[in-house]
């Protein structure tokens, strides 16, 4: 038994895309305790809701996170629509879901690249990001932005996608699927990847449930919860939606769950495109949220369930807007998964949780 040493990890570390600080208490090479710390990039975006009106805040909500930017604007808009009782046309709901699933694909591809980089597979990283670029091109062509789309408004969406263009997108995605399978083959079947990830950062289903974890992190521990199951908005019309689960609970399972979710997203887009109605894309709502009304809503972001809360005060500004992002919910799980691991596995475990600290702090 060695002496306990504290190793500070982050906020700037080659493996971390975002500033997260961990105090790792290690004995020899084994981590025995982890104390996470965030708060380096708190921007007070929730406070900004008092200065920007409900329509302007969409653009603020998008900037909470650069990866799930579309999800945040969609979740925010849905919550405020709930608050004011606005009906959104089906086509606008479908388009939102299509963009949201595309952003899930690009987020997962980005994450897979970072993961590959963390376990030292540089070529795989390049290929993942090359593929991600194709999805950004679809965004660019359909919304005019690559990451920040600014396409949602309260009451609908700003831009329509022509049907012919939708079919072209599906064709493009089928092309991506082929190349994606090759990459997946490397992730799922390559022995070097497996030797680095199998059995690392294990969390049982009981632990995952007790720690209230969400997203692919929880689904890799066999927790059957995915907000898309709730059938909100366009998700309600999916024929048969089953969350992708794995009962292995280790880092490798998390990679596999995400890898399968990308293909699932392609299927969802394909299904929605085949039955998209033509009832308009909605108009910007002219209502103001009533005084004291409250609404809460959940949306499945690429990283897991995101909770939104809004309270109106009778003016065009909201009184309070709250986004509880998946990463802050998963922090407890991350601490648990890190306990007892090898020091060299810390980067892999952190990355397979896919922390998004900007989301977490807002």
């Amino acid at each position, binding site marked *: 038994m060695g002496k306990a040493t504290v190793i500070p990890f982050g906020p700037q570390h080659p493996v971390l895309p975002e500033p997260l600080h961990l105090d790792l208490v290690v004995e020899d090479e084994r981590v025995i305790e982890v104390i996470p710390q965030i708060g380096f990039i708190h921007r007070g975006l929730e406070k900004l809701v008092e200065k*920007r009106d409900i*329509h*302007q805040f969409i653009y*603020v909500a998008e900037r909470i996170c650069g990866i799930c930017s579309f999800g945040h604007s969609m979740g925010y808009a849905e919550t405020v629509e709930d608050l004011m009782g606005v009906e959104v046309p089906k086509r606008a709901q479908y388009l939102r879901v299509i963009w949201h699933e595309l952003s899930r694909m690009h987020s997962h591809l980005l994450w897979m690249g970072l993961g590959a980089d963390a376990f030292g597979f540089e070529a795989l990283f390049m290929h993942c990001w090359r593929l991600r670029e194709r999805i950004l091109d679809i965004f660019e062509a359909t919304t*005019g*932005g690559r990451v920040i789309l600014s396409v949602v408004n309260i009451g609908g969406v700003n831009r329509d996608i022509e049907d012919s263009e939708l079919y072209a997108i599906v064709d493009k995605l089928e092309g991506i699927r082929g190349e994606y399978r090759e990459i997946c083959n*490397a992730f799922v*079947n390559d022995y*070097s990847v497996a030797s680095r990830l199998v059995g690392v950062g294990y969390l049982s289903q009981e632990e995952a449930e007790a720690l209230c974890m969400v997203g692919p992190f929880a689904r890799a521990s066999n927790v059957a919860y995915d907000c898309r199951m709730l059938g909100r908005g366009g998700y309600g019309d999916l024929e048969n939606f089953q969350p992708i689960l794995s009962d292995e609970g280790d880092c490798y399972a998390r990679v596999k769950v995400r890898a399968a979710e990308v293909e699932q997203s392609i299927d969802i887009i394909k299904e929605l495109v085949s039955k998209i109605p033509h009832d308009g894309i909605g108009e*910007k709502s002219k209502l103001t949220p009533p005084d004291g009304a409250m609404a809460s809503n959940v949306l499945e972001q690429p990283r897991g369930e995101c909770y939104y809360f809004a309270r109106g005060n009778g003016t065009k500004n909201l009184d309070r807007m709250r986004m509880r992002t998946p990463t802050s919910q998963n922090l407890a799980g991350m601490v648990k998964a890190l306990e007892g691991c090898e020091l060299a596995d810390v980067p892999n475990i952190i990355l397979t949780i896919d922390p998004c600290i900007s989301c977490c702090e807002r």
Partner: protein
Amino acid sequence: MGSFKLGKMTLRSLFGKPETVLYPVQTRPMPEGLKGHVSNNIEECILCGICQKRCPTEAIAVDKKSGTWTVDGFRCIQCGACVRECPKHSLTMEPTYTAPALTKQTHTEIKPQPSEEELAAKAAEREARIAAAKAAKAAREAAKEQEG
């Protein structure tokens, strides 16, 4: 079991065309509808200031007195709110990005001052309006007196 799972892809990359372009020499084509920068057709603009009010970043400044419309390209986030809100549709989103610059600068459009003839026409119109109002009033008064 086995290794070199990326073999096919690697070989393809080896002999295929590179994914990237030689940036300053070559540029990617800008898709139509790309949100690059805002431009204003000042001829049609009525300097109502709605864009200024709707802008989430306060990047637009409209001065009705001096007839100027100013956008700070470094504050603008290309959300397109102003373009959608413009009542005269004088604002458009151009698919080219603002060029990089060493210092922050704003872009100002000046509403051309109306020419002599236009001023004269406007004045004549005003005269006509006043005359019409006067006539209408006289008629009203007459009606009132009759009533009284």
